[in-house]
């Protein structure tokens, strides 16, 4: 299946810059050092508004998953909530995880399509 093409939006360019280097970055509060998902715009723990893109370990565990079945041709895809070692959950795509189970150890990886930005996926650690 052809991977979807992702374009930049100006708000998450740092994520894709890091992805190009094979690194996962998420947000971290400059004031209290709490970790947040990439979509976060402020810190719900201390109220701080300064979140900085910061490299995460890429280690995660599987919380829950679902299998998206295509209406036409193509393969079914596993999507998931994964919990990063740092604490935040990510909306994630699983790659090559055939037998998912809660708590399964995962590692962040990137798929590099010919066109567009790299795609974050999680594979069995």
């Amino acid at each position, binding site marked *: 299946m052809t991977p979807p093409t*992702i374009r*930049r939006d100006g708000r998450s360019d740092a994520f894709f810059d890091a992805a190009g280097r094979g690194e996962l970055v998420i947000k971290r509060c400059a004031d209290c050092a709490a970790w947040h998902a990439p979509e976060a715009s402020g810190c719900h723990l201390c109220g701080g508004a300064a979140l900085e893109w910061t490299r995460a370990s890429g280690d995660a565990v599987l919380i*829950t998953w679902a*299998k998206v*079945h295509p209406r036409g041709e193509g393969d079914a895809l596993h999507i998931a909530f994964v919990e990063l070692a740092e604490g935040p959950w990510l909306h994630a795509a699983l790659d090559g995880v055939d037998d998912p189970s809660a708590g399964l150890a995962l590692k962040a990886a990137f798929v590099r399509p010919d066109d567009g930005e790299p795609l*974050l996926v999680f594979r069995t650690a």
Partner: protein
Amino acid sequence: MGAAIAGLGMTEMGKVYGRSARRLAADAVRLAAADAGLALEELDGLLISHGMGGSPGIELADVLGLRDLRLLTVMNAFGATAGAMIASAAMAVQSGSASAVACVFADAPLRPKVSAGAAYDSTPREFRGYGGMTAAQGFRSVNALYALAAQRHMAEYGTTSEQLGAVAVSTREWARLNPIAQMRDPMTTADHQASRWVVEPLHLLDCCLVSNGAVAVIVTAADRAADLAQPAVHILGWGQGHPGNRYERGSDFGLTTGATISGPAALKMAGMTVADIQMCQLYDCYTITTLLTLEDYGFCAKGEGGEFVASGALGPGGALPTNTGGGQLSGYYMWGMTPVSEAIIQARGQAGERQVARNETILVSGNGGILDHHSTLILSPAQAGSSTTTGR
């Protein structure tokens, strides 16, 4: 002085084409006022809940020709709105800020020759940014998020697809007795299991319908309602619960809902416990929603919802008749007005072949977002403090 529901107006529902959501809303308000035996000009409050496919706003008052209203607002707590609207109307009546309040929901997402699945489709033409990346990878639909919730409950508590199927089957058994239900063909657990995956672990028959239509109710003072055309349906308790799940370590996503907050609040106001509830009308956007809501209200222990729904308790003849009109799974999808409307019909004793004999205490739920927002109402044909209410 208590508040009561004095009128119910329901348009045709389902594949109803050619009328906008605004027109449907206006029709439902007119029907509700006529049902109550009130002239439109006797309404002094209007609360509006819009859906996804069209948005009647406060201009609905002008469409209806209402003058000198004392309460007019659009409310939105997604699927919890109907319960929240009726509670607000009751408070307005009890405070004296309005005396007869119409609460209306309308939506018209279906179009001719377009599948129901496409009605709410918001797939973008291109994917941009981090959110675009997750959307492109499959996080595109409410179905996907409820599937993740269902899977978490299944993994945590051993809940099975067949148990979710039991919810769909019992709801269909009720729908078969409801002339206005959209899906009335017989359904077995095998049918449920054989229906196509929407997003695994959710089969097609785990998912609600999509309907065009509108439902309105009139809320007024209990003593005034007693003099109107229909049997009064008393609003004995209400509550909301918005857990604010954060997607991070410790999240209860998929395991519990705001019903743990709204249920006890509504029951306490009504002076009841779940043991006093004789019938449930629950927001059933998916079979898992029914199961979770029953657990969170305390009809069974957390994690035992699967066994409870598979016991036959919810269907005709069961110990806890639930979604007796077919719910949103088989009846009609009018957001929170689906359970509200059936509760009113049952409380009045007007449910015909599906009428439940013990109808004195009815619990009604609303659920919105991805199990993010919840509302609860306790409705009864008997006024608060009267001695006619009895245990289940």
